[in-house]
């Protein structure tokens, strides 16, 4: 195919017809310059930043920055969902989806807190604060021991109870 391209260009030039090439108006950028926006974490831990935190470090951060919506001890309020509890999913199609009964990947907890929380001031937490909050919430749900340190290595290894609870609806579309 590559040998055809110069020929096509030559023909287009010769005939005076505008080339069908793309406009090429995008500006080059390096991954380094995208870093501030590149906040997605993959389930295998790709994208997790340096830093660490424990439940003990997370508790006061939660009380100061999260409890006004999520309630004391993360028990929930009318504004925001409870982050503790694990009602069985067999209890009905409207069962509240919690981290412990539903979420398949611990990395989602880090990704979502870092990108979207606190609701009124997203992306203001340090990476250490996010790791600490993740540790606090996972420990409240007894998904990790109280004193376990969350970091880029330990977080993706947390066993999530509902990991295998999903059916891909339209696998042929992937």
């Amino acid at each position, binding site marked *: 195919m590559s040998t055809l391209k110069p020929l096509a260009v030559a023909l287009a030039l010769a005939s005076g017809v505008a080339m069908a090439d793309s406009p090429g108006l995008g500006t080059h*950028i390096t*991954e380094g310059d995208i870093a501030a926006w590149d906040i997605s974490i993959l389930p295998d831990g790709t994208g997790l930043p340096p830093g660490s935190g424990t439940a003990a470090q997370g508790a006061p951060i939660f009380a100061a920055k999260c409890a006004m919506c999520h309630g004391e001890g993360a028990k929930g309020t009318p504004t925001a969902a409870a982050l503790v509890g694990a009602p069985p999913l067999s209890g009905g199609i409207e069962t509240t989806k919690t981290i412990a009964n539903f979420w398949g990947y611990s990395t989602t907890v880090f990704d979502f807190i870092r990108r979207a929380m606190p609701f009124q001031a997203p992306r203001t937490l340090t990476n250490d604060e996010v790791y600490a909050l993740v540790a606090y919430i996972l420990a409240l749900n007894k998904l990790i021991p109280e004193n376990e340190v969350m970091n880029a290595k330990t977080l993706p290894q947390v066993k999530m109870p509902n990991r295998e609870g999903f059916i891909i609806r339209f696998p042929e579309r992937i």
Partner: protein
Amino acid sequence: MKRFAPVAANGLLDRRAFLREGTALAAAVTGYTLTKAASAEPLADAPWSREMGSATPPVQTPSRFEKPVVRTLSNPNNELRNSHARTPHQMLQGTVTPASLHFTINHGGIPDIDPAQHKLVIHGLVRQPLVFTVETLSRYPMVSRMTFVECGGNSAPMFSPEPIQATAQALHGLVSCSEWTGVRLSTLLDETGVDPKAKWFIAEGADSPALSRSIPLKKGLDDAMVALYQNGERLMPGNGYPMRLLLPGYEGNMNVKFLRRIKLIDQPAMSYYESRTYSQILPGGKAYRFYFLQEVKSFITHPSFGHALKGPGFYEISGVAYSGNGRIAKVLVSADGGKSWGEAALQEPVLPKAFTRFRMPWRWDGRPVILQSRAWDEADNVQPLRAEFVARRGETKKPPNPLAFPNQHYNSLTSWAVDSKGEVKHVYA
């Protein structure tokens, strides 16, 4: 007076009467109702006909008599939670939703984006990461297409074990249809190049939660678009100004608004909205993940809950049908709760993944009826009957708050009962 053959019980008439006879039928039908009606008053000039009208505004807004035609809001005071606004289907006609009435769901308010400063970056598993601006994208070859966008949680009140008495807007208002204009995503991916290892891409918005979804690259290279215009004008702020991802036929939340970043990746990110919110629990406790598709669906908008029929005689039954799989092939309408069906006329053009307006002439004899519609798409998918749908997908234990999303992706039938007084109620049939 000409008679038209009934096609199903309780006064449903042959749709071909409209298609073949056009104005002749309309005249005949009008004649029928007028002969039954009292004589009209003598005509006189109204005050507004005898004076100069108001000044011409730069941007038109609807007549002051159309004040009730508004979206309904879930969070009018912008409290710290998401906000839904629902389209008033029972007060609209045709297939295009006015941009001002297009449904919106925003998860952190509506950002006030300066288009001169907005950027879209495409990176990850590409040959060359590139940044685009509104200005540069506006120079690219564009395409326009009519496409519906539907929230994965639209029609969630239909999971209630008892029919919730609410309008088509309250039940189905999280779907709308626009003409979208923009640049094909495949054009931009041609310029960045695609690493063969890429199987998915993350789309992320410039709103406060940096809303992100993982989307199969297959869809991105198929009919995905970076949309800049909605019904000919720039996108409405609540619909993603200045640019949004458009994935025709796919769950609304995946059509990421305020689009600022696309990252090609080899595995889905399992973001909050795909791994939690739009994964739905099934009876027994398993859950569907990666539903993507908004499946074939229809509902009658005229008449529907909140309308009152003014006595027996002619009415047109109409509604919208759509499918994320392609074109609508057929819509059947019943006036006896599904015992007998007649085929509705499909208003041209019938476009893939867009609203199709269906119409059915109807002469109501004044007795109670139950109206339903059922749609098929060109891939022969059919709207499931409610009994079979809830057998597979379940119901809530108690009627939910109509603003809540107890489950997702309802595409079964909607039934409206007209009583002998002409009042329309929501029923299951």
